[in-house]
């Protein structure tokens, strides 16, 4: 009410020049259609960029750029702001010369090793589905302590798109796969890293895994694997092989570099968990969030994202008192499986300090853990799969900071 009184006083103090002096755009002729055949965001939005976290990686071709979640709405990530993770740089590949090969680790697993051109793949029955993609290392910097200031850096290895492509199962059927014996699939990229990952056959069989060329209505972006990538819903991003050139059927997992030396999770007993694929139930408040300063007391909307690699988000609870009490947030539809879900909750700021936290529950009953609950089992050296509840602290001066609570 105090803030409002000030507002009103200000208003009564005079008429708003932004209203009284008609702006140029009300009194002139604007720009023509098709000024850009492919349009761009407003010049006023330049602050929202994907960015690197200084010091996180040593070379920019094997690195990460984070999506600016603090400024995004809804569930679709603009493709220009999709997070990046490359191991040996990205390419813009001539699609007319790109090929997909399907073979077996031996002849008995697959009857017909086959080569497909993009022309051919794009003729096959396709499906379009919205899914999140999250790097297994997302929030990895925060396993031990608070390390970075904003949600862009804590959670920005996360994006969500509508993907279009052919179910891998269709292709394997065409090639005469022996689904009884071939329990694993190796997917391999055409880039320098020749990125390879073992893909669960169960997800191929139930039609979830896509050989995708479309992303948010257009072709994949070069940074995201143009012209072909694998989509493995709910599974960490490294399995979504970019520049996909080859699929091999096998009867054992492949222990590739990025599932043996990296993307393995160190447990307290010194063993590494291997083939940890699923991204567990998780959520984060994107606004108000670290590095932001609230302008005024009064009504605010708490907004954020929730997701689960196991299926649909069922509920998101929000707390503003450090986790003493929680209130269910509003979920924005459509709530889709293995897709981001936007949640919103009301908050009236009285000028006192507060904490913002969110906790997601998925349709399998998994509940997002606190740091305490997570570390009790996995300690804090796993690097990957940190799905703990994120806490933001609001100070009296309106500034919001990244914190971890008892």
């Amino acid at each position: 009410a105090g803030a409002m009184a000030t507002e009103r006083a200000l208003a009564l103090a005079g008429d708003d020049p932004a209203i009284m002096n008609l702006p140029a755009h009300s009194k002139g002729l604007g720009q023509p259609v098709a000024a850009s055949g492919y349009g761009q965001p407003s010049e006023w939005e330049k602050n929202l960029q994907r960015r690197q976290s200084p010091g996180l990686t040593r070379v920019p071709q094997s690195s990460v750029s984070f999506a600016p979640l603090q400024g995004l709405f809804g569930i679709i990530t603009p493709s220009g702001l999709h997070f990046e993770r490359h191991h040996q740089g990205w390419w813009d590949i001539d699609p007319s010369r790109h090929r997909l090969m399907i073979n077996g680790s031996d002849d008995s697993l697959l009857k017909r090793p086959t080569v497909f051109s993009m022309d051919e793949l794009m003729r096959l029955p396709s499906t379009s589905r919205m899914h999140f993609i999250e790097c297994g290392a997302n929030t990895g910097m925060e396993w031990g302590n608070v390390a970075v200031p904003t949600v862009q850096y804590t959670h920005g290895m996360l994006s969500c798109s509508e993907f279009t492509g052919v179910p891998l199962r269709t292709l394997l059927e065409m090639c005469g796969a022996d689904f009884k014996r071939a329990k694993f699939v190796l997917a391999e990229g055409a880039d320098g890293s020749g990125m390879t990952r073992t893909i669960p056959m169960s997800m191929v069989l139930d039609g979830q895994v896509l050989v995708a060329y479309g992303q948010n209505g257009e072709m994949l972006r070069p940074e995201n694997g143009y012209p072909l990538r694998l989509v493995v819903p709910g599974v960490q991003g490294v399995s979504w092989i970019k520049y996909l050139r080859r699929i091999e059927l096998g009867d054992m997992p492949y222990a590739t570099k990025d599932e043996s030396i990296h993307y393995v999770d160190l447990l307290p007993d010194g063993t590494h968990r291997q083939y940890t694929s699923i991204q567990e139930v998780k959520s984060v408040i994107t606004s108000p969030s670290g590095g932001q300063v609230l302008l005024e007391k009064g009504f605010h909307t708490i907004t954020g994202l929730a997701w689960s690699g196991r299926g649909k988000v069922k509920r998101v609870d929000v707390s503003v008192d450090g986790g003493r009490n929680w209130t269910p947030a509003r979920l924005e539809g459509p709530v889709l499986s293995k897709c981001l879900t936007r949640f919103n909750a009301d908050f009236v700021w009285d000028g006192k300090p507060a904490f913002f936290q969110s906790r997601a529950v998925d349709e399998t009953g998994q509940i997002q853990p606190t740091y305490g609950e997570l570390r009790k089992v996995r300690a804090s050296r796993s690097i990957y799969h940190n799905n703990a509840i994120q806490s933001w602290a609001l100070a009296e001066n309106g500034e919001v900071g990244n914190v971890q609570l008892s």
Partner: protein
Amino acid sequence: PAFAAGPAEKFPGIGRAATPAEVKAWDIDVRPDFKGLPRGQGSVRQGEMVWEAQCASCHGSFGESSDIFTPIAGGTSAEDMRAGRVDSLLPGANQPQRTTLMKVATLSTLWDYINRAMPWNAPKSLSADEVYAVTAYILNLGNIVPAEFTLSDTNIREVQERLPNRKGMTSAHAMWPGRELGGQARPDVQGSSCLRDCKKDVTVKSFLPDYARNAHGQLAEQTRLVGASRGADTSRPP
């Protein structure tokens, strides 16, 4: 029969049989059971030459560099080689970085990766013998094979049995989608659904220290110019 038949008649005109030469050109993966490993051999000494010429600039002469990536060798012991578990991965071991040799459990992984991706700026340029040699050199850096050793497709299984962390991996978890790996059905971590009076005290255990305030640049320039908030001016104290 593998190359004889055409694609399924369900989708006429789509796909064509891969030729044996084409499959050979692209099917380069090497599995943990060494299926896919080409014949060949290379000595530690030959490997040292490859290493100094094509690898050391990034990884350091002894695989110790962390300028480019985590170090490749270091942190393993003779005891680890016998047991197949690396002690320095245990909590409190005071090991500054987790090196490649501390983690790798399957020798195929190293061979396959170097063969497909290294040198980083010229991947797939090494001959099979060069990959054997440089792999031997790395193993020697970790004291896993002696200096006069020659690694080959015939003795690689024996060397696998000396890898320090060969028993260091587990699939006993619920994070693989499917039952192909055994694993576990029940996730290991579960949160609480408490809604009211869930805890008494709230203490801030960790926060960004003041000196790191500007470590990610000026945050005022990293958020939108309108909305409920502005980016904090991190060029000044809070």
